[in-house]
């Protein structure tokens, strides 16, 4: 069972620079083929100020700042017993190469199912760009399997 006293905890803000080469690497790793995710001229032709981050890249911004794992480490959870349960994104603006993103994560819920065999940690993370504009909200559910369990 996880300590529900962590609900409401906010972690210190983090800052991540969105690097052009990293975006290309991410696009390659997901098998993307659209030139807008690789080529600055193709991105500019679509009205982007730089190569855009694909829709799920905001989770990588949080991951780069170790945010999901930090919560588990903070709570003393072995990451090999953890799994991503649910993830959602709300988009408010472009994230492009060269942006500097400031994020803030907090724990919004902790609950368990099956008599503690499965524990759920729910966090929300806000991402703002260098102009102070909100670009994305993330909601993450991490599942922690109890000892001896697992599927």
């Amino acid at each position: 069972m996880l300590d529900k006293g962590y609900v409401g905890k906010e972690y210190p803000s983090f800052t991540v620079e969105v690097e052009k080469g990293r975006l290309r690497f991410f696009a390659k790793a997901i098998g993307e083929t659209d030139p807008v995710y690789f080529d600055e001229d193709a991105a500019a032709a679509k009205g982007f100020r730089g190569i855009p981050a694909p829709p799920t890249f905001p989770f990588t911004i949080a991951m780069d700042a170790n945010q999901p794992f930090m919560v588990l480490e903070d709570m003393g959870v072995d990451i090999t017993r953890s799994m991503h349960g649910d993830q959602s994104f709300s988009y408010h603006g472009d994230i492009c190469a060269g942006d500097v993103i400031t994020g803030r994560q907090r724990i919004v819920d902790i609950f368990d199912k099956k008599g503690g065999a499965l524990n759920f940690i729910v966090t929300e993370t806000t991402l703002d760009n260098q102009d102070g504009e909100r670009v994305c909200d993330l909601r993450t559910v991490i599942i922690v399997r109890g000892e001896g369990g697992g599927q």
Partner: protein
Amino acid sequence: MTGAVAEATFDIGALAEGDELPPLDLPAIDRVQLALFAGASGDHNPIHLDDERARAGGLPGAIAHGMLNMAFLGRLLTQRFPQRTILGMGGRFAALAFPGDSITCRARVKTVDREAGRLGLDIVAENQDGRAIITGWATIALPARA
């Protein structure tokens, strides 16, 4: 009229409830892709790279990153809609995917709200056996009416 929307006739403005977008069929996930995605995504959890450590964590072996499969769903969306019109997306990781699995991403129009200019989609990433790996949703801004 609902049903599968053919590639050649895809038109955002004409989508109706129940329409299915052309699917995105992915090549089988291999361990090289998982290694690349670990590096590119920043998720270095050994359960995606190391069978022994995955088994020690109670899994049958190394598993694909859930966020890789969700990234495939993102590709399905950006293939059909300008990225700026994607207002939100998300999903539940319903089942595990393993190296060797071939994922197909599908989207079906759930709601069309012309007044609000919103399209609601049910999206799913499924494996070669038709089992849902991710069940999710997306909200798309419809182009303004002429």
